[in-house]
């Protein structure tokens, strides 16, 4: 598959998932490390990914990036600006970058992400990097999409209270203290070590980076790669991929039910769901397929 075919395919997945599935199921199944990058807006996720791409390319690895930015709840439009940070890779044939709008999904990604990641793996990339929208505290879907989750933090993030909160802080395999060229990174680093020690977690999962000058990026890529190898060797990857399918199925189920629900005219929410389920069962019984 060349870049143009991959790009057209992603559009099909986003706009006509049922048709895309027909093509996707005939593609060879391949597996590569899928690395998720998440964190608050402005912590440097895109710039860090730019550096990670450079490092992976120096190791002769091909890289696909999917970068998600939010869709407007009012106009459904979107301003997708993550590419701005990755300019130096635009002409590299070994790098494919795609911007995606979240299109109403609330978990920090886009409903099509599961199929898109599967496509990029099938296309034979050595690494797939997934960047979430700038998240707050509770957008954790990247946990189910990626094998290894990198949480990017930067000085000014908040005090120790923020580290203790459930949600995004819990889902990371690697914690990055980015902008290590700025003041305040030491205290964030120390607090993070303290927090992880307290939680009985591995403190070696913390890396200091500066996406600006590239320091720490080599260490980050080493950690990502080592972690993924461990997942393969311990059989944990298989389990993660099963969980991924499960969450993909939940996404499809939600979308299907929403479709039926949109056709129901009832003010009672419980009755509305019931009649949506009824009409879906009816359609399935008649052998027409539920339609996702």
């Amino acid at each position, binding site marked *: 598959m060349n*870049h*143009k075919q*991959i*790009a*057209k395919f*992603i*559009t099909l997945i*986003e*706009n006509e998932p049922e048709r895309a599935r027909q093509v996707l199921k005939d593609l060879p199944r391949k597996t590569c490390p899928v690395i998720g990058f998440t964190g608050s807006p402005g912590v440097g996720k895109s710039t860090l990914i730019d550096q990670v791409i450079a490092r992976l390319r120096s190791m002769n690895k091909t890289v696909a990036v999917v970068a998600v930015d939010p*869709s*407007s709840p*009012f*106009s*459904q*439009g*979107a*301003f*997708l*600006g993550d*590419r*701005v940070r990755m*300019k130096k890779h*635009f*002409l590299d044939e070994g790098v*494919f*970058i*795609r*911007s995606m*709008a979240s*299109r109403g999904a609330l978990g920090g990604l886009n409903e099509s992400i599961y199929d898109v990641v599967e496509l990029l793996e099938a296309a034979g990339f050595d690494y797939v990097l997934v960047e979430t929208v700038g998240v707050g505290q509770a957008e954790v879907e990247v946990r189910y999409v990626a094998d290894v989750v990198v949480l990017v933090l930067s000085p000014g993030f908040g005090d120790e209270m923020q580290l203790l909160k459930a949600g995004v802080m819990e889902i990371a395999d690697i914690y990055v203290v980015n902008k290590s060229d700025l003041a305040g990174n030491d205290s964030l680093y120390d607090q993070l070590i303290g927090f992880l020690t307290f939680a009985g977690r591995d403190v070696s999962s913390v890396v200091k980076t500066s996406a600006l000058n590239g320091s720490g990026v080599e260490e980050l890529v080493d950690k990502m790669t080592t972690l993924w190898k461990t997942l393969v060797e311990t059989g944990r990857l298989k389990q993660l991929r099963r969980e991924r399918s499960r969450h993909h199925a939940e996404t499809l189920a939600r979308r299907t039910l929403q479709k039926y629900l949109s056709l129901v005219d009832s003010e009672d929410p419980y009755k509305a769901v019931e009649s949506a389920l009824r009409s879906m069962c009816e359609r399935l019984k008649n052998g027409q397929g539920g339609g996702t």
Partner: protein
Amino acid sequence: MKKYRILIAKPGLDGHDRGAKVVAHALRDAGFEVIYTGLRQTPEQIVKTAIQEDVDLIGLSILSGAHLQLSKKVIELMKKEGIASIPVFVGGIIPPDDVPKLLEIGVARVFGPGTPLSKIVQEVREVLEGVASTSES
């Protein structure tokens, strides 16, 4: 359900992207998905981005005076890559005498200073819907 994707790009060396951002913002508010790639892009980078992002329209913002050369190069490369069916709009400081020249090169619309945003949004919509209906028939 088709969602239109638009690339707003700044080719060449001028360092002013306020106009490009204002247009991108207006298109976002009109419901389009806008991919913005920032300052100082080469025609090669713009065309590669258009391919990977599978956009439906390209908007070039040029204030440097090199609009004829840059637009020509972008459109030539688009032909070479087989994506010449994507409409190209140009906005910026364009002398009126150059407008017919740009149209002749293959640019679909040209917007000079003072163009109301509503006009840009409307013409984007018209051109995209025109392209969609010809490709379906």
